[in-house]
């Protein structure tokens, strides 16, 4: 019987380009992925679900860089850009995957992206699939790689 707010898995990486959480139990209501760290290459984090790279993703963003507030969106994408800006500076990214285990609705993702070196912002994303989420991939595309980043996945279970 899962607890209400339970760490499911955690890892700290100092190299490589991809972190994957697989075989995620359907026992929870929401998932929360907490990321703290940085990488190289001047690229940002990319999120895919269920190892699905088809054009089922989209997102809307709200962010500021200390001078200007901005909003933009991307539609019919093969991934969700999971943080604002690049991942070079040490930063926090919180990714909420809401009602991830239900098989009735598409999956909506809420992201808080906090990079003290350059951006603060939020992202709402959509994965147009009613499948339960059982895998999460967080990738730095070429030429990026992780330098020192911790990833902890939590499950949150409603009564």
């Amino acid at each position, binding site marked *: 019987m899962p*607890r*209400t*707010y*339970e*760490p*499911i*898995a*955690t*890892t700290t*990486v100092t*190299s*490589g*380009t*991809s*972190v*994957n*959480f*697989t*075989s*995620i*139990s359907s026992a929870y*209501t*929401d998932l929360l992925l907490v990321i703290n760290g940085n990488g190289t290459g001047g690229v940002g984090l990319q999120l895919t679900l269920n190892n699905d790279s088809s054009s089922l993703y*989209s*997102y*809307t*963003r*709200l*962010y500021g860089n200390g001078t200007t*507030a*901005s*909003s*933009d*969106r991307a*539609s*019919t994408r093969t991934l969700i850009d999971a943080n604002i800006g690049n991942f070079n500076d040490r930063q926090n990214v919180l990714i*909420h995957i*809401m*009602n991830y285990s*239900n098989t*009735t*609705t*598409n999956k*909506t993702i*809420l992201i*808080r992206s906090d990079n003290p070196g350059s951006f603060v912002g*939020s*992202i*709402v*994303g*959509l994965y*147009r699939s009613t499948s339960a989420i059982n895998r999460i991939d967080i990738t730095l595309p070429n030429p990026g790689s992780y330098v020192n980043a911790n*990833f902890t*996945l939590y499950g*949150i*279970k*409603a*009564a």
Partner: protein
Amino acid sequence: MIGNIVAGLYDAGVIEVGDFESIATVTVGAGGATPINFTSISSDYQHLQIRLLAKATSGAFQNIIMRFNSDAGSNYNWHILEGVGSGTPTSGSSVNDSSIYMLQDTSGGYAVAVLDILDYKNTNKYTTIRCLSGADLNGSGKVQMWSGAWRNTAAITSISIAHVSNSFDQYSHFALYGIKG
């Protein structure tokens, strides 16, 4: 590819049982519903969190309001910062309102929100609320950051979440959690 983690092998969590507890959950059935009420909220916790998935029975981006302890007086303030996917983000506010506006949902898809009600039982100060919410519809959508206050020092014992224009559609889901301090 590194860091392939089979979820479920990690079982040495730092969260103690009871620190973050599920208090009550409402899932909307066929036919829709409004309002969603959480009543007789225990004073056992330090903060409350509501995590929700909401869809309107009809219409585009409509306001969802929240009231505490059945108070419909002009005792609420709120601010919003909103991005609609292009242009300059907008901001809005209201003082002396009869409710807190905390979310907008739409019949085009499910909006989600994570809402924190801080120090809800403290009778020495007003209650402060923050909320991150949004919905993306693959070509439209909004992401919103809200803050609010209930200008009443009473401990919160009930929460009402209502749709201003229509009802919450089937499968909308509202979960109330308590966080111990």
